[in-house]
């Protein structure tokens, strides 16, 4: 069973909330769910759409078609009418005049008397989305009781009256659609075991909390802000201090200062904010202060297209700040990896006393994903923090930057007797005192660099999904795992032997480990959500490996599974011969920022 909804409305009408609640109705029925929002950088006006995919067999990528269109305004009919499949249904407010649109004959249309239904149910305008969700569920004959359960949990705190009215509104929508048309499908729960429906940023935040995060400082920036929101909501429950700072320069320095003092601390931002953090990346590097940055990419350069997705910032993450110093760049590829790698990034920062960067993107961070639960098997490793030290001779300092074999030196926290030292942005001797000695400079650079060898031992090889001896291999990193996995599923259905090599640890790279996986691949197609193949370049530079084909998309949308399937199928047909670079453009070329462009 696979089913796709689209909810469309003008910005500010609440499609995100409607989408989340509708999604929850299905995770409660044991289904896999993906919720994918698209919205322009506007608070009012423009057009918002939320896609909800439901499946009993895993679902991971948005697609171009839908079965049920819930159109909350006229624009929504205009934008999505062609996406509705034959046998699908459009549910719209009766106030919308759809006569000017050419709608497919095999598509069911239901005009919802929203105002009347609300009035009859004794509900308020704010409960309109309950009517709409009820209507959508009727169209697929899904038990309304599950939705009623969601409403009880959602509004229980607000009192019985509110719950009752919401349920009445939901029933009104449900009954109306049932009375008007036959359901397009009959969908029933597949399991009593509920799944969770979690946003990517929420999973990053939850993973960090589980990983011992105690302090988070950030300046609001889409699409990283919801990490900040979630942590703020939870700061008292989990004893975390969350700080909204005056800018990203401050946020990064707060995170560094808190880590220096001994609490696990992180900051989060998108590319523009990270640009302001770059100088302090080097401060963390030179002073060997652990710090973790959540870098949630959006379309750049500059302000770019702020509410859309891209994988364009890993070269930036890799090179941010002047001078040479080690950092670790990690890119989770799905909701469970968001959780576990967020915690792992905190471990790596502490253990190696380096900056770690968790790279996500708008697609992964702002979409909702179902999960059966996170892997909580996380061992917090604080590295070489020292708590008991002998007394120091008078007027001397502790050797905080002692030259050690693994490059990591014992780290006392302020407040520890016998551990006095100065952390500094200057090159320094073993006590932290500034020095310009050539030999000490070289020794300290070498010490810091020597951590890489040990860090690499902790870093696993890229993972392989699908047939071991596949005819061809898709190579992806970060969130592009999701459409790639769904494309694999398509190939499997067609009995085509394919696999995916997926990278979560992007830097540093171990040539042996990478080649042990990629060396076996026959034809390789790398997909990246950017315009230059940034990670392909890194693979060439650091492990001397190149894909046969490089498929790039940089329109603001993630790759859709269909696009990967179609492009790779074409390559296969051509015997994997042809131009190395393939640039993908969405078939559906509509923009949501300026509906007026279409006379709306």
């Amino acid at each position, binding site marked *: 069973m696979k089913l796709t909804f689209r909810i469309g409305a003008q910005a500010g009408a609440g499609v995100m909330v409607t989408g989340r609640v509708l999604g929850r109705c299905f995770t*409660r029925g044991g289904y896999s769910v993906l919720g994918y929002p698209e919205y322009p950088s506007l608070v009012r006006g423009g057009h918002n759409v939320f896609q909800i995919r439901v499946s009993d067999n895993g679902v991971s990528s948005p697609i171009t078609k839908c079965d049920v269109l819930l159109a909350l305004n006229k624009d929504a009919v205009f934008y999505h009418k062609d996406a509705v499949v034959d046998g699908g249904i459009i549910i719209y407010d009766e106030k919308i005049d759809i006569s000017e649109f050419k709608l497919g004959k095999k598509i069911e249309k239901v005009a919802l008397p929203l105002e009347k239904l609300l009035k009859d149910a004794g509900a308020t305008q704010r409960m309109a989305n309950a009517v709409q969700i009820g209507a959508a569920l009727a169209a697929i004959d899904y038990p309304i009781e599950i939705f009623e359960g969601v409403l009880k949990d959602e509004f229980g705190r607000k009192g019985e009256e509110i719950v009752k009215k919401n349920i009445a509104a939901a029933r009104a929508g449900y009954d109306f659609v049932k009375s008007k048309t036959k359901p397009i499908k009959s969908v029933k729960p597949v399991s009593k075991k509920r799944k969770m429906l979690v946003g990517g940023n929420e999973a990053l935040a939850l993973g960090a909390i589980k990983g011992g995060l105690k302090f988070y400082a950030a300046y609001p920036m889409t699409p990283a802000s919801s990490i900040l929101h979630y942590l703020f909501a939870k700061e008292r429950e989990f004893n975390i201090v969350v700080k909204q700072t*005056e800018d990203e320069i401050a946020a990064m320095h707060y995170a560094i*200062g808190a880590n220096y003092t001994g609490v696990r601390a992180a900051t989060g931002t998108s590319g523009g904010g990270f640009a302001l953090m770059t100088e302090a990346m080097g401060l963390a590097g030179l002073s060997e202060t652990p710090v973790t940055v959540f870098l949630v990419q959006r379309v750049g350069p500059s302000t770019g297209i702020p509410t859309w997705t891209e994988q364009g910032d890993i070269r930036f993450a890799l090179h941010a700040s002047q001078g040479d110093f080690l950092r670790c760049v990690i890119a989770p590829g799905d909701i469970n990896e968001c959780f576990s790698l967020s915690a792992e990034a905190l471990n790596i920062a502490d253990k190696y006393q380096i900056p770690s960067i968790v790279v996500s993107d708008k697609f992964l961070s702002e979409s909702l994903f179902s999960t059966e639960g996170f892997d909580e098997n996380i061992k917090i490793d604080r590295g070489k923090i020292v708590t008991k030290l002998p007394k120091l001779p008078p*007027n001397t300092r502790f050797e905080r930057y002692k030259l050690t074999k693994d490059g990591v030196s014992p780290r006392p926290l302020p407040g520890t007797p016998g551990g006095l030292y100065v952390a500094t942005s200057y090159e320094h001797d073993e006590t932290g005192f500034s020095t310009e000695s050539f030999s000490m400079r070289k020794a300290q650079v070498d010490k810091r660099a020597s951590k890489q060898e040990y860090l690499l031992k902790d870093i696993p090889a890229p993972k392989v999904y699908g047939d071991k001896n596949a005819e061809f291999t898709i190579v992806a990193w970060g969130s592009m795992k999701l459409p790639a996995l769904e494309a694999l599923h398509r190939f499997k259905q067609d009995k085509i032997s394919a696999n995916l090599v997926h990278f979560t640890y992007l830097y540093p790279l171990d040539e042996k480990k990478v080649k042990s996986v990629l060396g076996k691949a026959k034809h390789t197609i790398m997909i990246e959500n950017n315009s230059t193949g940034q990670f392909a370049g890194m693979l060439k530079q650091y492990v001397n490996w190149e894909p046969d084909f490089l498929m790039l998309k940089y329109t603001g949308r993630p790759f859709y599974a269909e696009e990967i399937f179609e492009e790779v199928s074409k390559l296969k047909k051509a015997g994997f011969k042809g131009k190395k670079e393939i640039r993908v453009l969405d078939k559906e070329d509509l923009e949501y920022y300026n509906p007026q462009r279409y006379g709306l």
Partner: protein
Amino acid sequence: MAVTIKDFDVKEKMQWCPGCGNFGLITALKGALADLGKDQSEVVVVTGIGCSGKTSHYINTYGFESLHGRTLPVASAVKLANTDLTVIAEGGDGDGYGIGIQHFIHIMRRNYDLTYLVHNNEIYGLTTGQASPTSLLGMKTKTTPWGVIETPFNPILSAINGGATYVARGFAGEPAHLKELIKGAIEHKGFSLVDIFQPCVTFNKLNTYEWFRERVYKLEDMGHKPTDKKAALEKAEEDTKTDYKKCPIGLFYKEEKPTYEDLLPQIKGKPLVKHGLKIDLSKAYEEFM
């Protein structure tokens, strides 16, 4: 054994220009910490970049020499992470009133319990003599060969208006007086600013020790009441209004207000750094089901 001023010394030689105001300043700071009986390991001195930045190297406590202008965000986080620590932030006029001014404006709104000492020498010293935000009108520097034409920044006035709860000015040429101001600042619960006239003997030939000595006087000698905001604001502008004939030093303004940390129940009675890391997320998960 009681801590003495000598405990705060380091073996390394303090490499400031002979006669630099920083010598008097660091002596006052060490003296204040010793007088207050502060345990060296419970003190963190956070500095920025510039001649003032070296202070964290020349005082034997925990230290963090951050980036240019970024003293305050680092110091703020140190305090939030461990409220048991005594946190001293130090920077110069370029560091704090130039490149890092946004942090200064915002820290005053927050009233963290920490002390900010500004080595204000009205010049950029380490970069060899450019105009700073506090360089006086008409002063000739490498970047103002025809004289400064920008109105100097008034830190005392800004601090009182900005919400700082302890606003003082000292003079490095009067270390005993300065020491008392720093002691008061450390003991004050909330954000305290001590702006310090700190003559740069190499690059500022205008604001010399003699120049200051002719002009400074102590507010307490004139019966100034630091709780009187109106009077404090008037005194804050006395130097500019008298064309620098009179430059008051001492405590301008003091106010009791809850600190930022006081308003965070999650760290009440227990510093953040001492909280356990084991967390049960099961209740949080329920919200997603």
